[in-house]
């Protein structure tokens, strides 16, 4: 039922698992369309969001901002996050 991860999504999943030390989570098994935050999915919180944002800036050179098309939507799922970051890194 869970859709498979694209290579970009797998790379992002690995970043998240690594940065947040999610010991019992396998990056390849994360459902890219599952909600990541609060009492859903991975159960991430706002401090996690900040750590992920810093890691994304370091790895992808993309600086997330709270006003980016409603950052809650961007961060909602692994798929939405990867898609946003990928589109921001595409050359203009």
């Amino acid at each position, binding site marked *: 039922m869970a859709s498979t991860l694209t290579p970009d999504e797998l790379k992002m999943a690995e970043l998240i698992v690594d940065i947040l030390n999610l010991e019992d989570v396998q990056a390849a098994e994360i459902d890219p369309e599952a909600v990541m935050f609060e009492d859903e999915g991975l159960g991430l919180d706002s401090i996690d969001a900040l750590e992920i944002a810093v890691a994304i800036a370091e790895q992808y050179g993309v600086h*997330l901002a709270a006003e980016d098309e409603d950052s809650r939507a961007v961060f909602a799922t692994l798929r939405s996050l990867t898609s946003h970051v990928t589109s921001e890194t595409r050359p203009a």
Partner: protein
Amino acid sequence: MPGSVLLTPLTRRSPAAPFARRAGETISVGRFCADVEACAERLPAGRHAINVCEDRYAFMVTFFAVIRRGATNLLPAQRAPDAIADLVRDHRDSYVRESYVVTDEDAAGARARTSPCSASPPEIAADHVAAIAFTSGSTGTPELHAKTWLALATAASMHAGRLGADVDVNAPRNVVATAPPWHMYGLEWSMLIALGAELTICCDPVFYPEDIRQALEGAPAPRVLVSMPVHLRALMRSGLAMPRLETVVSATAPLDTALARAVETASNGRVLEIYGCSEAGTLAYRYPTRAENWRFFDAFSAARIGDDVVVTADFLPAAVTLADVLEFVGEEFVLHGRRDDRVKVGGRLVSLSEVTERLLALDGVDDGVVVSPAALGLGESDRLAAFVVTTRSAEEIRRELARRVDASFVPRPIVVIDALPRAENGKLPREALTALAVDVARSSRD
């Protein structure tokens, strides 16, 4: 006969003075007061309001509108849905205010006037309980701390004075805050502080380093950043360039001196660190790159009674016993760690026994304990961990617990074990818990 009426410090400011800035628009003191009046008219009847506005401006307007209606703001320690439901149930006649969106329509009456809005700041009695702050108590049930208007207004002017903000009217200071206004630190330093001093509050959402940079760029000098170590750390790691800042205020968790120096170098400003507790509000300050020692703000007197440090002030209803270990050096003090089961996660206070109680209350949990590995001397992350005796999965336990406590306080990891290492008297000795935590860490690495 109630206590003396105290006019809102806002009357000291001109109605045309800039109170807030939001989405590129400057909101004057007068407009803010008009918005407060308009909001107050729309509030339902009720003695207590739980303000869960996410938008900073909406939160500020609603906070004062509630007071204007003679009601009290409840400031929950946590905003998880069940925690809010518990609060509503326990406070008769209370209501939950989801959000208040400031529209032109709401302030139409005041805006129709062509001159700067002349709505007067509301008069508030000194002894009116403007807010009640809830914190995690050491016994598991929340503690309530009533804040009179006198207490909040007095604190506001002390803090503004520390920033030098009451001095130069021609150079209003612009405040950008990452600290949310619904906890005591943000309430005092990013909202109340603007009452009687020339400060303009930025109300755009500010969270990521990029937001901080944009908001600071968009604010004219002099600029004050009100933040916390977790956000300052992220800001420094981002390497983003910042405009010149006058002061960077930090609170809620100890600020590493190296980080303070880095912030001063990057901002050309000075770092002002604040120490306080929900019960008493902001108590003391220091400039961490200049000296290690702290000074109490003038309003407070501190005395040592046995092992405890007890603080009093005219505006505090009762003496406050501090939960930290203080070592006095003349008029100043050195701050050592916390004394009890309350720890900080992400700058916010949580009671280990409270989270443990909620864990034990779940179906299918036979035994369990929530610990702070950092407090046990294991690792730097301040995340909580839990050991549970249950036939359910750790994942199920986590999901249920997430409905009852804020996401930051949900233990990670939750480890299912056969039995807890309880001593004969049923207690869990620190050494046994530490050994358990170390064992688990070791086996997960194998």
